[in-house]
């Protein structure tokens, strides 16, 4: 999950400036300067260019509390994030689909830093405050590295097409 210092939020998509929020929001989450962590924002950039009807697209690379503002009241929120799953040897670029509302709660030592309100903490905070979407899908891409670099590794970047297809399928199912 994102624990890196963020770079700027990047609103995009066809519905970003409409008075009535779109039913769906897609959020690419991660730091653009941390190699594979950039996959979320890069996916958001690509999706924003499609100008999807009835879906807002955002890239968020900071404080997870921003997510509450973006997904509150939506029928569907899709968060695209880079992850390192533990205990398995999952190849980089593997795409996981998780039900965000069924995530296990974070360990008790959350908020370890004032910069690290990550996705899981944001879900827990949203649950405590009643500020969650009706459906929350997390598309998690297995990362190879989070070392400082401006581009993700090739096998992670190759997941963009699959992310794209899955996002469209999720939106169509709303």
């Amino acid at each position: 999950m994102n624990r890196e210092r963020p770079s700027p939020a990047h609103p995009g998509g066809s519905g970003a400036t409409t008075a009535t929020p779109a039913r769906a929001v897609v959020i690419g989450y991660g730091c653009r300067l941390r190699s594979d962590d950039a996959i979320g924002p890069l996916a958001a950039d690509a999706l924003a260019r499609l100008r999807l009807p009835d879906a807002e697209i955002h890239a968020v690379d900071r404080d997870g509390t921003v997510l509450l503002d973006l997904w509150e009241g939506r029928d569907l929120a899709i968060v695209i994030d880079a992850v390192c799953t533990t205990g398995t040897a999952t190849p980089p670029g593997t795409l996981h689909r998780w039900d965000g509302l069924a995530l296990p709660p974070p360990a008790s030592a959350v908020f370890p830093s004032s910069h690290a309100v990550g996705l899981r903490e944001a879900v827990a905070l949203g649950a405590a405050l009643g500020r969650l979407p009706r459906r929350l899908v997390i598309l998690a891409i297995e990362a190879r590295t989070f070392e400082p670099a401006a581009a993700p590794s090739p096998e992670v970047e190759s997941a963009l097409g699959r992310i794209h297809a899955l996002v469209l399928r999720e939106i169509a199912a709303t």
Partner: protein
Amino acid sequence: MTRPRTVTVDLLARVEGEGGIHIRMEGREVAEARVRIFEPPRLFEAFLRGRHFMEVPDIVARICGICPVAYQMSSIHALEAILGVTVHPGVRALRRLLYCAEWIESHALHVYMLHAPDFLEYPDAIAMARDHPGVVAQGLELKKTGNDLMTLIGGREIHPVSACVGGFYKVPETAALRAFAARLRRARAIAVDTALWARALQFPDFDQDHEMVALRHPDEYPLNEGRVVSSRALDIAVDEYEDHFVERHAAWSNALHSSVRSRGAYVVGPLARYNLNFDRLGPVVRDLARECGALPPLTNPFKGIVVRALELVWACDEALSIIAAWEPPPEPRVRCAPRAGAGRACTEAPRGILFHYYALDDAELVTAARIVPPTAQNLRSMEEDLTRIAPRYATAPLDELARRCEQAVRNYDPCISCATHALTVTVERRPA
């Protein structure tokens, strides 16, 4: 005989950066209290050397995601002192407004998300939100107001990119600033509620005789300018800072420890600023302080949460005043003619004074840099507080003792990432 006991808490949460607390107790006495800083050195001062002076504000902003404006402001003022730059009053006002945004963002984060759980006895803000959703929601709204004001002026909410030596690369649209006033009025109302809420918290009886150090300006509550003053009659120009404050290395810390030369530990930050500048807060905030029972001198570090709330009200008021009087400068920035030399500046980061020194050569390149962040200045006082607070919980369960020690450190809102340019808690108990 008391059986020796050792407690290790793997992470001191709700501070920025990596560090820990180590306390060795012998009976009821503290034999050793250390704030261990193991975040690696970040070497910013070294890699600033050889960079063009215009690059400096954006490089040092990366030291901290919570107080990047402080780093930008201290560096800009120090460099402008070398270059002999005088900025337009509109630029000066906009810098203060940008700083207000940072104070609102940082103080709201600390009051609600980092410090309040200590007082309400929750492990974190998420657990607190389950029982106090309204309180946490207020904190998030305040913080978002600070973030959005930062974005409006600085282009983005963390590591803003508009401020530069000589002024701003770009100033915000006047209409957008005026429109933001409504948000600030709402934030101000929340901040007042916050102060009234904070006054009712339970504070341990823990008045300390720390020397307090802050900036003091002839007319204003200090942000960007002023003399360095203290509760023990220090009153110096910023250029004299290095004559009166020294840093030393402590083996257990990757952050240097600052002292007042020939005296020792001191405190910077909201409590010091407030005590030394109460008369600059304006009558409305002073009246609120009276209502909160928080008239200076406040010497209990645990009451920093009340002072941060009062400073939140002040920052909203100051931001509203700046916006009401806003006249954009004729040019966003003045061009700076190159000049070799050395310059110093202090500004008031949310956590206290932030000192910068730079030297430039004829080629406009940095030849030397020195940065003294507020957390490094507070480290010795944190350790003194630990020495005094731990004996009160000497017979308490170890988790209670550790929790109180963590809270005592969090009183200072430490930013270890800045200071290395905290925390694991270890408590050893040995028989007396």
